[in-house]
C-alpha cells in the first residue's frame, strides 16, 4: 500500500504553515511544558458564520485540511479521514460543565454539535461538498495511523482517487490540568535538559494539526511517497520492537541499510522511553527526535510524517534536532517510530518520489 503525498499542511508550535520556514533559529529546548500552536490565519478558509462557533481544534483542523487541498489543487476529495486522540475536548468540557451547572436544563446546541469527535471531518466535508467516505478514528496514539491505514486501503481498493487524511489534537486548560494531575508533565526545572537526553519523568504536552492529500498518482505537486504504516498494540522490549520494525521494512521490500534517518518519538520521560532507547541503540541508523518541536500528543505521528516529508523534500534535517550523521542528498527513506506513554507504538515509512 503506497501513496503519493500531493499536498501537506502542518499547524504546530512553530510557524510550519509557512512552507518556506524550516525551524531556522529554533531552540531544541522547550520554552514551556505546554507547546501551543503558533498563531495561524484561518479567515480565508472558514466562513465567518462557521468561525464564530468553531473552537480551537476546529479552526486548526479545517484550516489545515482546506489549505492542504488548495496546495494539492483539489477542490473536493473523494474521501476524508481524520485521526484524533481526544477529539473536540474543549467543547465537550463546555457542554458537560453546562450540563452539571444547569442541572441538565438549558443546554445550548452549539457546544453539543461541536463536541462530537468527528466535527473536523464533517465541517471539511460540508465546505468541500464531499459526500464520500467520511471517517474519524479515535484510538489514542494510533488514531492518525489508523486513519492513514484507512486512507491507504481506500486508494488500494480503488474506492477513492484523492483522499484527505489528517491527525489533530488540541491542548486546553482542562486537559492541561488533567495531564498535570496524572503526572504526564515535566516540572519547569526539568526543561533545562534536552528532551531526548532527559533524566526526569513526564513530557512536554503539545497540540497540532497535520493534513495530507494522498493519491496513487504522482504529479508535479508530489512531495514524497508513503511506503507503509504499521500499528503496534504492545511491545515487551526494544529488541521486540526492532524485530517488528525489520519485519515491517521487509514487507515493504526495503533493506535496513536503505533507511537514511529514523525519526524517533522519544517523549522525554526517562521511564517510558526505555524500550524506544533500547530499540534505537540497536539500530545503527542516524536518529533525529521530533517531539522537541511539537510536544507530546496522541496524533504527533501526523506531525512526524509532515516533518519526514519536509526533510525529504528539502534534503535537510532541522538544526535544532540532532542528526549530524546524515549527509545532504542522501535523505531518501525515513522511518518514523512513535509511541505514547510506552503504549501503542507505530511505524511509518516515507520515501522520496
Amino acid at each position, binding site marked *: 500500500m503506497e501513496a503519493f503525498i500531493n499536498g501537506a499542511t502542518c499547524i504546530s508550535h512553530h510557524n510550519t504553515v509557512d512552507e518556506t520556514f524550516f525551524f531556522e533559529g529554533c531552540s531544541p529546548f522547550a520554552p514551556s511544558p505546554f507547546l501551543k500552536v503558533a498563531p495561524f490565519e484561518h479567515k480565508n478558509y472558514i466562513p*465567518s*458564520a462557521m*468561525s*464564530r*462557533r468553531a473552537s480551537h481544534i476546529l479552526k486548526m483542523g479545517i484550516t489545515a485540511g482546506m489549505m492542504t487541498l488548495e496546495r494539492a489543487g483539489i477542490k473536493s476529495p473523494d474521501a476524508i479521514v481524520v485521526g484524533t486522540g481526544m477529539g473536540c475536548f474543549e467543547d465537550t468540557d463546555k457542554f458537560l460543565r453546562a450540563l452539571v451547572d*444547569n442541572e441538565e436544563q*438549558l*443546554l*445550548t*446546541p*452549539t457546544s453539543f*454539535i461541536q463536541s462530537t469527535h468527528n466535527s473536523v471531518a464533517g465541517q471539511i466535508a460540508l465546505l468541500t461538498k464531499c459526500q464520500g467516505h467520511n471517517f474519524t478514528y479515535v484510538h489514542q496514539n494510533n488514531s492518525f495511523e489508523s486513519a492513514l491505514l484507512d486512507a491507504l486501503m481506500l486508494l488500494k481498493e480503488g474506492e477513492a482517487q484523492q483522499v484527505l487524511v489528517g491527525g489533530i489534537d488540541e491542548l486546553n486548560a482542562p486537559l492541561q490540568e488533567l495531564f498535570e494531575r496524572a503526572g504526564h508533565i515535566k516540572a519547569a526545572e526539568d526543561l533545562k535538559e534536552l528532551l531526548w537526553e532527559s533524566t526526569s519523568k513526564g513530557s512536554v504536552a503539545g497540540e497540532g494539526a497535520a493534513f495530507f492529500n494522498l493519491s496513487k498518482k504522482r504529479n508535479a505537486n508530489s512531495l514524497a511517497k508513503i511506503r507503509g504504516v504499521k500499528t503496534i498494540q504492545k511491545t515487551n522490549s526494544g529488541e521486540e520492537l526492532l524485530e517488528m520494525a525489520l519485519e515491517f521494512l521487509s514487507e515493504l521490500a526495503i533493506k535496513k541499510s536503505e533507511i537514511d534517518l529514523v525519526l524517533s518519538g522519544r517523549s522525554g520521560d526517562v521511564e517510558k522511553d526505555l524500550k524506544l532507547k533500547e530499540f534505537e541503540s540497536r539500530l545503527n541508523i542516524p536518529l533525529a527526535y521530533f517531539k522537541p518541536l511539537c510536544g507530546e500528543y496522541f496524533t504527533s505521528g501526523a506531525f512526524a510524517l509532515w516533518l519526514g516529508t519536509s526533510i525529504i523534500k528539502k534534503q535537510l534535517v532541522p538544526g535544532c534536532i540532532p542528526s549530524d550523521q546524515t549527509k545532504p542528498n542522501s535523505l531518501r527513506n525515513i522511518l518514523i517510530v512513535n509511541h505514547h506513554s510506552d503504549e501503542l507504538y507505530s511505524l511509518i515509512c516515507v520515501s522520496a518520489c
Partner: protein
Amino acid sequence: MEVQEIIKNLKVQIVEQLNLEEVKPEDIDANAPLFGDGLGLDSIDALELIVLLEKNYEIKIQDPKEAKAIFTSVQTMADYVASKMK
C-alpha cells in the same frame, strides 16, 4: 426594568451567547432583523436565543409561531421580555 435597559442587556447577551466575534453590542441596530439580513443569524442561533431568554429572564417559548414574531429584532425581543416582566 425599562425596555431601553432590556435592549442594552440583550445586545450584550446576544453577542456573548452567539459568539459574534466581529460585532460589538453597541453596533447592533435594535430594529434591524436578527435573521436573514441584519445580524444574519440562522436556525442554530434561534435555539440559542430561546435558551438565552429562559436562562436570563425565565421566559419559556414553546409556540414556534410566537417565536418568529418575538425574534424579529432586538426591539421585539425586548418588548416581549418587558411584557412578561409586568
